């Protein structure tokens, strides 16, 4: 099937070359990082994790979100999602590839990376995160590829795929839960030290992930004419709305616990993020932007007549994605490490080089996604299934 990725019009190829260009540019900066060390980043002794790990965290959510399609399809036999299942699975593959990419660029001694496997350490959550992420990648590659291949051969997918699909549903929850445990099990980091963190991660994954997927589906529809069907889109939009409501609710629970209890450690990070502290206000405008966008997107998603309007929906989704990205792809990490263990504030902001390397990883994900979607849509076209009947 891979040959489908090698045939395409000039638009397809210019997009591919554009991505390769970004990857190439980012890679030269990464070479520079390998030579100089992580000193080229804005990280410090106090804020020792930053943009890379934050993107990793955000993208784990994107990977896990495929389950919002796979679950209704397999568990509730919601057949309308048939056309979307493969999109969700391929999106998960691209997302996990980016997650692994961000981990690799964040490590100080990448050539020793396999030490995690040579010296397995079950007491480290990072060890388990490595297991679940790679396992999830494998599951999605096998399931996605086999389903597509059998569709192309016009046969039913083999039986074992179904049991793998059920496994992947449970597994999807595990990847984001384990990633939350990376943070929530650390003493002295109040912003992360909350039992609801895993639940918050899942809630934000289940709104942001499908939102990104829907946006990608809209683009795919424009470019290839592949339409997963109006009711599939409508149902997914509903799922996104509920997940976002839960996500916002969970965050408000954190605010209540911190401020009603009045415990300084619990309030400090949140105060730093939203109003600034010790004269540092770097993240304040970002947090209020996120808050505003979250509420506007909800106002556009909750009433059915706005949500079903396909002209408005993409805008609401874009706002939702930006809001959740600021919350999880920026503030979660910085807020967790600020203030530092001495109750002082060390500011962190990603450097240009850090952003270039991050662009490389994102472009790599986009490349993987483009190729996979190209194959999938070409096969659907061959089968004459470009439009789902509603």
């Amino acid at each position, binding site marked *: 099937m891979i040959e489908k990725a090698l045939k395409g019009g000039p638009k397809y190829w210019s997009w591919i070359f554009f991505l390769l260009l970004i990857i190439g540019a980012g890679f030269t900066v990464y070479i520079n990082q390998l030579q100089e060390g*992580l000193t080229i980043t804005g990280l410090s002794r106090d804020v020792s994790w930053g943009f890379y790990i934050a993107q990793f965290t955000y993208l784990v959510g994107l990977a896990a979100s495929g389950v919002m399609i796979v679950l209704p399809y397999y568990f509730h036999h919601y057949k309308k999602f048939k056309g979307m299942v493969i999109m969700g699975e391929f999106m998960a593959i691209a997302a996990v590839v980016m997650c692994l990419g961000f981990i690799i660029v964040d*490590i100080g001694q990448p050539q020793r990376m396999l030490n995690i496997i040579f010296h397995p*350490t079950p007491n480290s959550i990072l060890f388990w995160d490595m297991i679940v992420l790679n396992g999830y990648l494998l599951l999605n590659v096998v399931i996605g590829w086999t389903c597509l291949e059998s569709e192309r051969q016009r046969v039913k997918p083999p039986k074992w795929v179904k049991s793998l699909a059920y496994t992947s549903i449970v597994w999807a929850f595990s990847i984001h839960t384990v990633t939350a445990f990376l943070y929530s099990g650390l003493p002295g980091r109040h912003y992360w030290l909350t039992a609801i963190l895993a639940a918050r991660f899942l809630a934000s994954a289940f709104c942001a992930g499908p939102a990104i997927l829907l946006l990608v589906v809209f683009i795919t529809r424009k470019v290839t004419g592949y339409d997963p069907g109006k009711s599939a889109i409508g149902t997914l939009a509903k799922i996104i709305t509920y997940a976002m409501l839960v996500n916002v609710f969970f965050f408000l629970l954190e605010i209540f616990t911190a401020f009603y209890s009045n415990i300084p450690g619990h309030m400090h990070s949140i105060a730093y993020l939203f109003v600034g502290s010790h004269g540092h206000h770097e993240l304040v405008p970002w947090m209020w932007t996120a808050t505003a966008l979250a509420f506007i997107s909800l106002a556009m998603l909750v009433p059915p007549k706005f949500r079903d309007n396909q002209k408005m929906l993409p805008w609401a989704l874009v706002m939702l994605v930006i809001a959740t990205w600021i919350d999880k792809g920026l503030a979660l990490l910085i807020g967790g490490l600020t203030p530092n263990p001495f109750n002082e504030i060390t500011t962190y902001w990603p450097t240009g080089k850090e952003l270039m390397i991050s662009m490389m990883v994102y472009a790599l994900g986009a490349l993987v996604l483009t190729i996979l979607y190209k194959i999938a849509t070409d096969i659907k076209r061959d089968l004459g299934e470009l439009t789902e009947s509603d």
Partner: protein
Amino acid sequence: MKQSRRNFLKFAGLSAAGLCLAPTAAALASGGGGAGKAHAVVNAKTLHAKRWAMVVDTRKLNTEEAIETLAEVCHHIHNVPTIPGKQEVKWLWEGTYAETFPEQENNFPSEDLEKRRFPLLCNHCENPSCVRVCPTKATFKRADGIVAMDYHRCIGCRYCMAACPYGSRSFNFMDPRPFMDMDKINKKFPTRMRGVVEKCNFCVERLAIGEMPACVEKSSGAITFGDLQDPDSSVRKVLRENFTIRRKPAVGTEPGVYYII
């Protein structure tokens, strides 16, 4: 299996020590004056304890300058680079009461306490969260309670830095060697490379040859070091006779560094 590499290193170290000592013994036996080997890893003078611990008397040691002197000695013998800015590396440094005991602040502290500075270093915790999170066992706890590091195994993931509630760890964001005076480095202690984490090691290399940690030696009696499990040890005696506190008791790591206030 898992431990084999470390065991091998230990074995290699011991055999190397044996090789170093053997000719000396032979030389002594033959009556010639054999010179002692500088690199002996383990010898008869090695100090042992069930659980090493430190008590800092902040009534005697509390000025920026005094703590700076200790830090200089520590950083010199361990080849700790002097890097300006927030990507610095430090094993021993100083902080105010509020920085040292952040959640035990008092709104009206005594003038004396307000002025005091406190030495800060790795606490060699009983339940070290840095060991708990390390995915490669590059950070590990020794039988004598010292939390040690294998710099050659560390992958630089910095998980331990996020996990340490005391900010005791430093990462080599850049190659540390240009930030050291290479003419004055301590040749008996390795320098580090970029991309690995490091911290105070309770001077294990000195204990191995029968010497007290450098900061303890330099403190003119203000820091006591000894075996916490031995009721007759020096640290237990000071702990018995003084009121002491430890940093961040709420996080449950059980620090091995005590402060007399």
